[in-house]
């Protein structure tokens, strides 16, 4: 933590506690944490994500009181929650849509980190902890989606566990071990429930480390310029508790609009059919937040190659602090980088769009235009391939090379200086 503790115990009992367990000091220091005064609304997603995690844990604990993790009863117990349990429809609606809201917020949070260079030194460990949280979130969401034991649950579980089976030599043994049998079945459902209950608490632990790692260098900010003096910061409370609180309120509006007006809008109709191990629904698609990776998996015409590309696309994010060579943190002062970044965001969205369609379907009107290599050029598989290439080029070529050759715009001397009139000193404390 930068700066000294400002807490002074006022009462006798506080002084007594402070030398035994300084927990009040800990809380006061968190609230007093000096935070850059120029944080914009993109910085509120950390608070929004904390809200999402708490929401998922609270609703999840409630659902576990009514859910039965057994292949014969799971589907019916979910219907029981939806129809019979008091407010069960509400709690499950929040939990199921909460997963989508959680991913929406985490993607914005990650794009913000990339745009403003929040992963750059000295925040590499902070970034990697965030990526670990993201991986844990994906595992948790995947196992949670299996629990209702509908057709999409079952076949999603089958496809994802088979992905691991494509590893050479050890793959099939690992798959059997994960399944606890020769296919996805009751043992699989049981252990997924156990782990789905466990992992959110692991996430909470890593979030603690993430916040710890945040409080060592302190927040990055939209200029990417380091905090130079006390004048560049404000205490977290009340300034950012209120700003985050307002953002959470707006976010809850969106959240509630799904829960109350479109509770199944992000789900899939096939999951209203109980799991049937003998019939695969057509088509099977993952939840929207996995679609870009699904598109990458399908774009490669080789099983193991597709799996490597998919994991590689996430792995690259882990090493981003070392492949980005730029000295300037924030893309606010890197016009060329900004352009490539926006195209990268578009790439992720297009890949998501491709992941939701049949590979052979035509994305553009006009039908088939002619086969190139293994598929028609006007197909989602070729559209995916073009954008998969950009995804990897962005990280492996553009990010390292552009950092070396781009001349950034001049960065402000300090966080305070851009808001001051031309020529004025960056020392607002002298202005009274």
């Amino acid at each position, binding site marked *: 933590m930068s700066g000294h503790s400002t807490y002074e115990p006022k009462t006798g009992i506080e002084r007594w506690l402070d030398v035994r367990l300084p927990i009040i000091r800990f809380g006061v220091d968190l609230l007093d944490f000096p935070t850059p005064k120029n944080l914009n609304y993109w910085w509120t997603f950390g608070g929004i994500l904390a809200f999402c995690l708490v929401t998922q844990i609270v609703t999840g604990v409630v659902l576990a009181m009514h859910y039965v993790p057994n292949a014969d009863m799971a589907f019916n117990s979910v219907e029981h929650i939806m129809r019979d349990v008091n407010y069960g429809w509400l709690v499950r609606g929040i939990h199921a849509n909460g997963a989508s809201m959680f991913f929406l917020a985490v993607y914005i949070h990650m794009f913000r980190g990339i745009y403003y260079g929040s992963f750059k030194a000295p925040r590499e460990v902070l970034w990697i902890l965030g990526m670990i949280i993201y991986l844990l979130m994906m595992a948790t969401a995947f196992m949670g989606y299996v629990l209702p034991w509908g057709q999409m649950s079952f076949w999603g579980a089958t496809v994802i566990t088979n992905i691991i089976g494509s590893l050479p030599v050890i793959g099939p043994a690992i798959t059997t071990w994960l399944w606890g049998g020769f296919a996805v079945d009751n043992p699989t459902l049981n*252990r997924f429930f156990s782990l789905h209950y466990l992992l959110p608490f692991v996430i909470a632990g890593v979030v603690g480390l993430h916040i710890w790692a945040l409080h060592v260098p302190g927040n990055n900010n939209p200029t990417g310029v380091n905090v130079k003096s006390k004048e560049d910061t404000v205490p977290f409370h009340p300034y950012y508790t209120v700003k985050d609180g307002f953002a959470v309120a707006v976010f809850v509006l969106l959240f509630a609009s799904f829960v109350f007006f479109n509770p199944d809008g992000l789900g899939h109709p096939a999951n209203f059919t109980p799991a049937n191990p003998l019939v695969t629904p057509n088509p099977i698609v993952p939840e929207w937040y996995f679609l870009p990776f699904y598109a990458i998996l399908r774009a490669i015409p080789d099983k193991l190659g597709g799996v490597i590309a998919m994991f590689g696309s996430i792995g690259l994010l882990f090493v981003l602090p070392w492949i980005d060579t730029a000295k300037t943190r924030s893309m606010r002062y890197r016009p060329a980088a900004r352009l490539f970044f926006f195209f990268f965001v578009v790439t992720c969205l297009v890949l998501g769009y491709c992941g939701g369609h049949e590979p052979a379907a035509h994305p553009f009107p006009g039908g088939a235009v002619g086969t190139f290599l293994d598929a028609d050029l006007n197909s989602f598989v070729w559209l995916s391939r073009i954008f998969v290439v950009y995804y990897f080029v962005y990280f492996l070529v553009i990010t390292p090379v552009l950092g070396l050759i781009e001349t950034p715009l001049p960065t402000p001397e300090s966080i305070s200086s851009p808001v001051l009139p031309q020529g004025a000193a960056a020392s607002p404390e002298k202005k009274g």
Partner: protein
Amino acid sequence: MATTNPHEDPNRRDFIHIAAAAAAVGGVAAVAWPLVDQMNPAGDTLALASIEFDLTKVALGQQVIVKWRSKPVFVRHRTPKEIAEANDVKLSDLRDPQTDAERVKPGKAEWLILIGVCTHLGCVPNFGQGPYGGWLCPCHGSIYDTSGRIRAGPAPLNLYIPDYTFLSDTKVKIG
């Protein structure tokens, strides 16, 4: 009896450290293994080894799906035309080269018995779809021919053949 100062006898002290650490690592591994292995298939799951199936249920040209070890098994009663199609394919055209004869029992070419799990990512391919007269996987578009061999799409291998034996002309034991 010699009174040795342990500080002057580094070898003996090192030995105790290494032995203690090795015992601790061995102990942790011995405890960890049951915690890992409990996730492997349980005894009753492994015990579901074989099933018997009455082939008269499958009309000529049709397919019946039976469940074996939680997996779908395709039992196909092939027409002479389908068998001929499977035999007419050049091995060099195949991704996972296998003759049709290697995939059926001798003299029983009309019966094709396959594990109905796509070798790509485990979905169940649909019978009677795709340009090769066999199966089309709804998940990622793998296409199999009348012998269950992979012909197009992302799957790397032919559909697997389970272990099975003919108990009589109309009865087969799978597993």
